[in-house]
């Protein structure tokens, strides 16, 4: 790293550095460049340009060599990522293969990663539910983790701000548990979903079935056309990348917007080794980057640094940022860094059948499903476990064909599918898990990854609270299904490994007190105030809602604060 002359230091100096180009890094890039900052965006993976680098997006089913089935050698070589529902022949190129970035599973943890510009925003499930004060007040009310340093009122305007730009479809349902947003036209619930909604409203005063809110352009506004995006075409193959920009991703939205300012430098193949801390200035001055092709290390400098590497990798970068002042990782005076990791419990599903509406079906496809906001322990504690769960709900009138026999009869049956004489219905649980010191990540003392960076050791597991909650989900949903007249109810506990929910959070939690948290209410490190963490690592608790929208809003809010502080000369 020596040999730096004044010119090269100048060439390697920006106003801001953003580590990561996924859903939160993209927002940091957009906000910081939009406010005039020369911003370096570091992406550890390759560049994936919107449309151009979506190789399978316009392929028809018959154009896939194995009709979208994975090759056996791929499954065998990738026991972790092969478990992911979105990993198939058409999406292989967007997922990190197991051998590409090794980590140590002290307890089984399926770490699903996307290393490319846009990160996992390319393949995400696009559910965008706001969090409420039932979530932000949870730790304080129920006595776990630490109190969030913010409330819904702090972030509500920023939800509105990001929703308008990203494009979120949804219905204004007027529920305190799931605040309404700036919505585009909602998707439609089908006959049986509407029926279940009505039945549930009749049977329970505090339970609701609503249409999910999703990041799809159902009726684009000028701001979306200005991004070069168009209406969602209901293809429901989103995870291959969308040529219409019909759903929100960094690639289709925030990154091109940031590029248009002329202020962004996007550097792919840039694995961040660590953040440089200057003891005299008492702040971070830049980052050390390893080029993944040449393995060469380069330093880049900036006045502020946004860490958006995705929850677990953000922990890795901070833990590896050691200095004389911070021997245990950047800002880590309290030894909390890497601890209180939590996730969402997706183990449980319940399926059933309904014998009504048999003269009706659906038409077209819907990249979304209905949603059951959390009702358990919502306003007060009512069970022997803490917190609760939200749930998806989906009804479909499926067709089948008789596959018995061979010859002309079989052929005729295959070409004339008939509707099942029931509707199929199903729900999956999205349970809040309790952040604990015993769920943590650390750095291995000897093993390193291909870039010479210590491997991460993951120690995350379910606990008794999750088991009780899963049981309650089965009981409550079974009761709701039974009261609605659904038959043949089947419950399934997949016992799936944590991580597969792809909602890992925490490790660098926000809080009011530097003794018990890593980040302040603006997502800045208490002990290094020009470093901001606005991805999943910053989450104090997990709520039951999908977290991405909250990362986006947090990032925009934090970037606004950071630039104001810079301009005041405070950073």
């Amino acid at each position, binding site marked *: 790293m020596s040999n730096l002359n004044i010119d090269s230091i100048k060439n390697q100096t920006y106003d801001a550095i953003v580590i990561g180009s996924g859903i939160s890094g993209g927002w940091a890039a957009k906000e910081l460049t939009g406010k005039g900052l020369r911003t370096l965006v570091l992406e550890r993976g390759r560049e994936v340009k919107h449309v151009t680098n979506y190789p399978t997006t316009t392929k*028809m*089913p*018959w*154009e896939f*060599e*194995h*009709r979208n*089935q*994975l*090759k*056996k*050698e791929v499954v065998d070589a990738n026991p972790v990522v092969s478990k992911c529902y979105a990993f198939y022949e058409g999406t292989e190129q967007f997922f990190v293969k197991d051998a590409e970035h090794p980590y140590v599973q002290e307890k089984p943890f399926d770490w699903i990663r996307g290393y490319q510009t846009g990160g996992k925003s390319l393949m995400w499930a696009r559910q965008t539910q706001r969090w409420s004060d039932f979530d932000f007040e949870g730790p304080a009310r129920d006595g776990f983790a630490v109190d969030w340093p913010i409330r819904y009122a702090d972030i509500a305007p920023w939800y509105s701000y990001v929703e308008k730009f990203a494009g979120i479809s949804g219905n204004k349902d007027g529920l305190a548990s799931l605040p309404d947003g700036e919505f585009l036209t909602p*998707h*439609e*619930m*089908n*006959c049986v*979903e*509407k029926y279940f909604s009505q039945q549930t409203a009749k049977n329970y005063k505090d339970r609701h079935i609503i249409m999910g809110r999703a990041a799809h352009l159902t009726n684009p506004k000028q701001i979306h056309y200005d991004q070069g995006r168009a*209406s969602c*075409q*209901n*293809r429901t193959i989103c995870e291959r990348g969308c040529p219409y920009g019909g759903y929100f991703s960094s690639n289709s939205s925030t990154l091109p917007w940031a590029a248009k300012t002329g202020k962004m430098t996007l550097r792919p193949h840039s694995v961040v080794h660590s953040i440089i801390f200057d003891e005299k200035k008492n702040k971070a001055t830049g980052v050390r980057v390893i080029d993944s092709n040449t393995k060469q290390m380069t330093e880049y400098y900036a006045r502020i640094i946004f860490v958006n590497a995705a929850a677990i990798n953000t922990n890795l970068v901070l833990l590896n940022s050691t200095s004389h002042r911070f021997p245990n990782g950047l800002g880590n005076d309290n030894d909390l860094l890497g601890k209180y990791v939590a996730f969402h419990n997706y183990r449980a599903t319940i399926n059933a059948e309904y014998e009504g*509406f*048999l*003269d*009706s*079906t*659906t*038409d*077209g*496809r*819907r990249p979304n499903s209905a949603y059951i906001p959390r009702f358990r322990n919502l306003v007060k504690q009512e069970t022997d476990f803490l917190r609760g769960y939200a749930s998806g709900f989906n009804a479909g*009138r499926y067709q089948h064909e008789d*596959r018995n*026999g*061979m*010859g*002309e009869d*079989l*052929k005729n049956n*295959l*070409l004339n*599918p008939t*509707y099942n004489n029931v509707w199929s219905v199903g729900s999956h649980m999205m349970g809040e898990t309790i952040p604990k010191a015993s769920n943590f990540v650390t750095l291995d003392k000897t093993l390193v990854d291909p870039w010479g960076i210590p491997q991460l050791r993951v120690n995350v597991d379910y606990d008794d609270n999750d088991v009780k909650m899963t049981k309650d989900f089965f009981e409550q949903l079974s009761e709701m299904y039974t009261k609605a007249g659904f038959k043949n109810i089947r419950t399934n506990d997949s016992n799936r490994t944590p991580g597969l929910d792809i909602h890992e959070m925490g490790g660098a939690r926000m809080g009011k007190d530097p003794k018990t948290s890593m980040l302040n209410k603006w997502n800045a490190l208490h002990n290094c105030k020009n470093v901001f963490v606005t991805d999943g690592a910053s989450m104090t608790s997990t709520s039951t809602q999908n977290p991405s929208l909250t990362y986006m809003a947090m990032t925009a809010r934090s970037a606004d604060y950071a630039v104001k502080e810079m301009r005041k000369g405070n950073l």
Partner: protein
Amino acid sequence: MQRRSAVKNIALTIGAAIVLPSWANAWNKDSFLKNHFSIASPPENLLAEIVETIIPKTNTLGAKELGIQQFIPKMIADCYDKKAQGIYAKGFELVDTNAKNLFSKSFLECDAKQRLEVLNKMSKSENSDEKSFIQLVKGLTIKGYLSSEYVMTNLRIYEYAPARYHGCVPVKK
């Protein structure tokens, strides 16, 4: 439904000129067996006649003309485990053994009706190798057929971009 029938009729007239996708054109038996998978090579056309027996040509194309006999070895070689590959490799000889037992001639020498009888018998066989072979080949034949361009553009239309979702429409009779 008018449009659908029209499309269907066009398909029937041009059916013979159906173009296989590029990945299918690159196939030939030699490249499979050399590059992917070493199994006893089924006699010329045997797999083609088996898949054609499972899904025959009627007033629409059958499995043979759709090249399902090229799709199946590809899938077996790339996506299946050793056990399934073993069942597949052994099966062809069993087809001929059954044909000889039933009709005193090879499967290829049988007529269409006799071939169907051979496969039906094997599908109900107490010999698990025979039953598993038919299950495997029949399953892949159906998969290949239903996901073929011909079927998905002419017979069971795949909509690439429906641009709509209606939650409650009458079932078409």
